[in-house]
């Protein structure tokens, strides 16, 4: 590393530590009340404060989709959402999809179609697909591929992911 690179990053931090901000939302139907520093992302809040580690941190820059959750019924990337901005929201994570001990149709379809290898992207893929189905827009294979393009699978299980989503769409 060159000395210029180091000196460029040694600016002292001028901002005093702000007070924690109260935030209240529901996660998978349960009320949650927290006091968070404003820079805590929804992703870090779920994983580190609520110990819901099903939601994965991939790129942490909104490019891979591994952190996809549903907020008020819409799929978002939780790594680019500040937790304090979700006050009053209803958050659904992969842990909240199964009901009464029964897998969600998408979870079962992913198993049926072997729609993963390493599985790291899978919670995001399934939450994203749940959002896609709720939107009701994508119908054809091309449309599903396009609408799922925000979820990267480096094992390249895409054909099986597509087949799983098609199966779950037929079931829902």
């Amino acid at each position, binding site marked *: 590393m060159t000395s210029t*690179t180091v000196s460029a*990053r040694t600016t002292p931090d001028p*901002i005093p530590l*702000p007070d924690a901000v109260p935030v209240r939302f529901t996660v998978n139907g349960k009320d949650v009340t927290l006091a968070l520093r404003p820079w805590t992302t929804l992703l870090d809040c779920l994983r580190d404060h609520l110990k819901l580690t099903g939601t994965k941190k991939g790129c942490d820059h909104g490019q891979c989709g591994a952190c996809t959750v549903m907020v008020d019924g819409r799929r978002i990337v939780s790594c680019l959402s500040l937790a304090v*901005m979700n006050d009053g929201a209803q958050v659904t994570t992969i842990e909240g999809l199964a009901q009464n001990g029964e897998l969600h149709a998408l979870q079962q379809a992913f198993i049926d179609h072997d729609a993963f290898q390493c599985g790291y992207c899978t919670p995001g893929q399934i939450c994203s697909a749940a959002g896609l189905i709720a939107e009701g827009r994508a119908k*054809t294979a*091309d449309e599903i591929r*396009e609408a799922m*393009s*925000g979820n990267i699978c480096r094992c390249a299980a895409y054909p099986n992911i597509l087949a799983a989503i098609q199966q779950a769409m037929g079931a829902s």
Partner: protein
Amino acid sequence: MINFQYAKANDVGEAVRLIAADRGAKFIAGGTNLVDLMKDEVERPTRLIDISRLPLKRVEETAAGGLRIGALVPNSDLAWHPLVERRYPLLASAILSGASAQLRNMASTGGNLLQRTRCHYFYDTATPCNKRAPGSGCAAIGGLNRMHAILGASEACIATHPSDMCVALAALAASVHVTGPAGERTIAFADFHRLPGDSPERDTNLDLTEIVTAIELPAEGFASHYSYLKIRDRLSYAFALVSVAAALALDGETIQDARLALGGVAHKPWRDADAEAALRGARATTETFTQAAELILRGARGHGHNDFKIDLARRAIVRALTQAARGTPQSQSDKRIQ
């Protein structure tokens, strides 16, 4: 990310008062670009003013027959709004060609206008960048500049504006409603973004104390003859190398009115009055479209890696205008270009 304070604004007046009182403050709405830039410490606001709860989420018809789009309408809601789909399908198509479904659910209309370039050097704080650190130089000139501008660039900056939505808004001659400490004003879309010149740190002509409240579309939406053609390195979820918003009003084979805007090629969505004038009154033929392409690209200049963009843009323009004339707009899910 550096430490920052957080405040919520409950109305537009409060938002403007808060931003005017703190030079280190920034507004946050969808956050899809700002939070990312803050993680890389490209943006270092000392306070965020959360405007996401302001009542700016409506899409309304105007007395002039157009549409007024609240600045906080999410990109996905706008693309799927029945009035946009029916009367401004060019806008819907451009929005759906950009980002991912998750990001479109988060990103706001106003924030889309204010997103910053995706120039790699702008993001890399170990390199010079006049946009990030004025006066430090431009690492893209003479560097890896495949994604960079071929029109309107300067010696200080060759970055491009990354938005697809804005290319359609430029073609549709939208206007931007803003509110600041001195009151409200309206900015023509062509005057909203600016060229880099010797001050590339300024992307737009919006004052730091102003907030975007709405985008207004005029009545003419070119719904019968339009196409948004986006060329990129992969089929989806990538920024444009070149994109073309083409819109025609036809009387038989004669072009009554025409709009042509380019994305991915300049510091702002690129329109050219001479190119559009050459289309107006002419017959909708390949020769006419080629002439318009030559005109809009007449000042184009490559920087090495992006030289290919000039020819790519020429052919994409002809193709998009042909698609528009035929009434067969580019699909954003079936990626074959016909």
